[in-house]
Structures are given as C-alpha cells and as structure tokens.
C-alpha cells in the first residue's frame, strides 16, 4: 500500500545530484502538455469529476447518504438504485459520492500535514547544516524506520479515533519522507553558483531560502506529493476499514468495504463499487505523479 512511498524514496535519493538548477524556461503551456500526455489527461479528467462529485454530492446524489430503507436491504443494482443498497438499505451510489468527499479530504489533509512539517524541516536542516543537520537526519531515519501504517494506527490510538486524527497520524508518517527529499535538494541548490552570487550581493538568509532555494528544490517534492495522495487515500480506506478512520454513519469507501465484507455471502456485488473507486483514484494520482515527474525532468523516460 505505501509502496509509492518507497519508490519515491529510492528514486529521490539518487535524483538530486544530476539536477542543475535551471532558470524557468518559456511560459509553461499547460493545455498543450495535457494534450500531449494522454495518461495525465485521463487522470486529471477523472480526478476533476471526482472532485465535482464530492463537492456537489448533496445536489447530485439520488438519495440522502444515511437514509435507510429497511424494505430494500442489500439490493443488487437496479433502476432505482444504480449500484444497489447496503445492509441498512442505504443507496450505494449516494454513499460512494459522499465517501469521495471524505477520501479527498483525508488525502489532502494527510499530505498537507506531511508538507507543513516535512518541507520546512528539510529546508532548515539542509540549509543550516552542521550538528543540527546531523540530529535532524537521525530523527528522520528513526521515524522512517516505522512501518507507516503501524505508526499511523499507534498515533491514532493516542490522539483518539476519527478521520481527522487518523490523517494527522498519516501526515506524521509522511513528514520524514518529504523532509529527507527536501534536505537533499536544499544541499544541492545551496552550493549552486547563483545562490553563491546572491549571497555575495548580500541577500539575507530568509531571502535566499524563499526566493532561491525553495523554488528550485521543490520540484521533486511536487512529484512526491502527488504520489503521496495515492498512499494517503489507501491509508484512509484501510484505517476506515479497521474503524479507526471515518466513523459511522458517515460514509467512506473503506468503511463501505468493511460492511460489504460482512455480508459478502448475501450480496457479493456490494464490494465492487467502493473497491474500484479506491483503485481508480489511487491509480489516477500515481499516473499523474509519473507524468509530472517526466514533465519536470525530461531525462527520465516514462517507465
């Protein structure tokens, strides 16, 4: 599940050395890029639809997500219920749409917390160097040693069960990954000629960090962030499956799978919709991440 995480780590450790900090080329033409990269186009289109479904769920969903209809329990897909109903007679399509809000919120929150802690930490220890860098790097290694979901379960157990706490926990697990990349990037950029030049002109440290180091070091982190959204999504689904994340009656894809699994012998069809929703969304984030990687660094060929 956290695999993308791992791939990112192995690649980012090798990447920085070869990336000279170039000045921004001619204006980036977003639509032309999107049209030339069909996988990115499809992923982005899918994610846009998902975001719209999440925002406008109250308008679009055919039923209220928690409305029970005890006459129609565990119904197969039909004209009234396109994806059938769950064990309480709730409309699966409606719950899927409301669940997409929780999935996207969770992914955004976890990655946001990871970025908020990891990026400043990485830049700071990389920029300052010395024993602070040494200490910071050991802390990063220590936290990275944990299986991410084990750490997330433990932190959720401490903070208290619920979606927001669970995603704060996942964000904690992300932070060292981002900090490590950001530190490595900062080290490369710090010694670049133009930063030396800016120092020579008397630029302040803060100016150096904000105007030169951050913009030039952030590129691999953007790729990492996109891939992490998939990891966070899978973590949310997993934690909600374990009832550590989204609490009933609120809907989440992982929670829907947990209920569907309970009644899998009676209504096997119920387990497909939430599973495919998770799979497609994770796939879309991963594909988009790979596309951005190729876009930012043309020397890497798409794998």
């Amino acid at each position: 599940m956290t695999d993308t995480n791992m791939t990112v780590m192995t690649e980012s450790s090798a990447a920085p050395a070869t990336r000279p900090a170039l000045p921004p080329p001619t204006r980036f033409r977003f639509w032309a890029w999107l049209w030339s990269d069909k996988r990115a186009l499809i992923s982005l289109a899918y994610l846009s639809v998902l975001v719209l479904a999440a925002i406008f769920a109250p308008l679009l969903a055919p039923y209220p997500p928690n409305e029970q209809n005890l006459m129609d329990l565990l119904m197969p897909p039909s004209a009234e219920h396109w994806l059938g109903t769950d064990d309480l007679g709730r409309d699966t399509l409606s719950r899927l749409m409301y669940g997409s809000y929780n999935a996207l919120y969770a992914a955004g929150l976890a990655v946001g917390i990871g970025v908020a802690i990891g990026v400043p930490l990485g830049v700071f220890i990389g920029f300052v160097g010395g024993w602070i860098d040494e200490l910071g790097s050991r802390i990063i290694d220590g936290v990275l040693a944990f299986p991410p979901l084990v750490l997330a379960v433990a932190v959720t157990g401490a903070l208290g069960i619920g979606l927001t706490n669970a995603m704060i926990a996942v964000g904690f697990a992300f932070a060292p990954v981002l900090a490590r990349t950001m530190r490595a990037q900062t080290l490369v950029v710090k010694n670049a000629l133009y930063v030396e030049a800016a120092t020579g002109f008397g630029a302040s440290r803060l100016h150096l960090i904000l105007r030169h180091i951050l913009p030039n070091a952030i590129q691999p982190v953007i790729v990492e962030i996109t891939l992490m959204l998939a990891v966070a999504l899978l973590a949310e689904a997993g934690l909600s499956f374990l009832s550590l994340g989204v609490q009933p009656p609120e809907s989440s894809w992982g929670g829907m799978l947990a209920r569907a699994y309970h009644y899998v012998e009676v209504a096997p069809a119920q387990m497909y919709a939430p599973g495919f929703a998770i799979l497609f969304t994770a796939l879309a984030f991963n594909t988009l991440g790979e596309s951005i990687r190729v876009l930012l660094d043309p020397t890497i060929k798409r794998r």
Partner: protein
Amino acid sequence: MMDGVPGMVGRRLMQLLPVMIVATFVVFSLVYLMPGDPAVMIAGDYATAERIAEIRHIYGFDRPMLVQYFAWVGSVLQGDLGHSLFSNEAVLRLILARLPHTILLVIYALLLGAVIGIPLGILAATRQGTALDKIITSVASLGVAVPNFWLGIILVTLFSLGYRWFPATGAVSVFEKPLEALYYATLPAIALSTGVVAVLARQVRSALLEVLGSQYIRTLRAKGLSSSSILWKHGLRNVAATMLTIAGLQVNRLFSSAVIIEAVFAIPGVGNLISYSALNKDFPVVQGVALVLVLVVILTNLLVDVLNATFDPRVAAST
C-alpha cells in the same frame, strides 16, 4: 578498524544506535499525544480515582519526561513492556504469541513477490518496448494502486466461499503444523504481495535496462558473447544488490499492509493486536507492538546490509 563483514556489522550497529534511540523515543512519547491527562485517557470512561492514580504511577507521569523515558527504556531492556489494561497479561507475552503469524505472512508475501516480480522485471527488460513489456508495466501500476485488503476480500469470495479451495479466515501455528500454516497463509500472502510484485518488477526492469545499456555490456556483446550468457552472468549479478535492497525496504510496507490484511482474514497476528488495542485504548499494547515492529524492521535492514556485504566485498568496505 576491523575489515570485512564483521567490521561492517559493527559499524552499522553503531549507526543504528541513534535510529533506535529516536524510534524508542517516538514510541515512548506517543503517550504525550493523548489529549488531556494521559492517565485519565488510559484509565477509560468509568475509572475510579484510585485506578487513575495507579496508572499515573505505572507510567510515572508524575516524573520529568526524560527520567520517564530512561526508566521506560530500562524496563524495556529487561523485557518488560508493561501489562494490557484489559487482560492484565504481560504485553511482551501477548506480542510473542502473535508475532510468528505476522512474520510468516510477511516472509511468505515477500517470497511470492520475489518469485513473481523478479522474473516479470527480467521479461520486461529483455523485451523492452514490446506488448509484453507494456502489459507488465501496466500490471505493475495496478499492483501499487490496488487496496490489498480489497484484493483479500475478492480472493476470499472467489477461492474460499466460491470454490472452497482455501479456508476463508483464521491461521494455524507454524510451529505445530507448518504445512497447514502455509495453506492458511496462502490467500492473505497473495493479497499482501501485490505491492512487492509491482515494485520489484519495475525496479528490476529499470536496473537491468541500465546495466544492459552500459559500456561494458556493449563491449561483451561486441566480443561475441551470447545474449543469455550476458544476461545471466553479468546483467543479473549486477542487479542482485538492487533486488535485495528493494526487497528489504518492502518489509516495512508489508508490516503496514499486514495490519489490515490480518483483519480481513481474522489472523491473530500483531497487526490485528495493534488495531484492536488502538480501538479499545489498550495503550501499553499499542506501544509494545509499535516498538517490536520497528525493531524487527531495523534488524531486517541490518540483515540486508550484511547479505549485500557478503555477496559483494566492495559494499563491506564502503559502509
């Protein structure tokens, strides 16, 4: 300074020491993440004042944090991880009874992942650009995006409830009935292995392509060596270390996914133990499992380094 593998193990242990200190400190300080008074939180909703005072004393919340940490590490080093707040059983005993199930599952999944993923990566690299290569890389993309526990549910539905080839849930002790234990662990291990298959296939493919495209391989080709002997003698030997390192990194995420897979298959492993204990606020057990698993992961990485150094003396010299 000692040379060779023993010296390298010693140096690595020294490097691992700070990692272990940080990891144990993280586990220890989890208690401080609790909102409000941790003693009240741990004691639960209907605790008496005496119970709260007792817990405060057990955890030593009345002493400074660093003092508590060293006291805690001291008792951990003596094998005392505290007691479950519910069953009052020793945490270490609870964990040791369940750890074999989880480790069996992780090793099984790792082997499955290697046996399937490495050949796929070799196939894709040696047939770069063909339809087969594209199929393998696409399947690998699916492998990292599929929720393992969903795959587990599908496998149960198909092969346990449908064909009845495999038991749906449960586990058997590997020490008592090893073969039956493997049989029970098969479906969960398959569900768990997708990520390893995908990552190994991708990384072996790209590492092999890099080696096969390098100067010395071209020289060998020019000297007239056959493709298969180049691949087996030179290509794979050079990616072996990559494979091993990546497989080692996967252990970390396998323990992650095992937490959920154990819930799907009702396997009484440490993953099930930690999620159940987190739900029930049995905090000493949560801490104990996190601690034991992080140590297992750190030692696994050490083992990978030792294996790499044994196969390649250059590694031993450079670390």
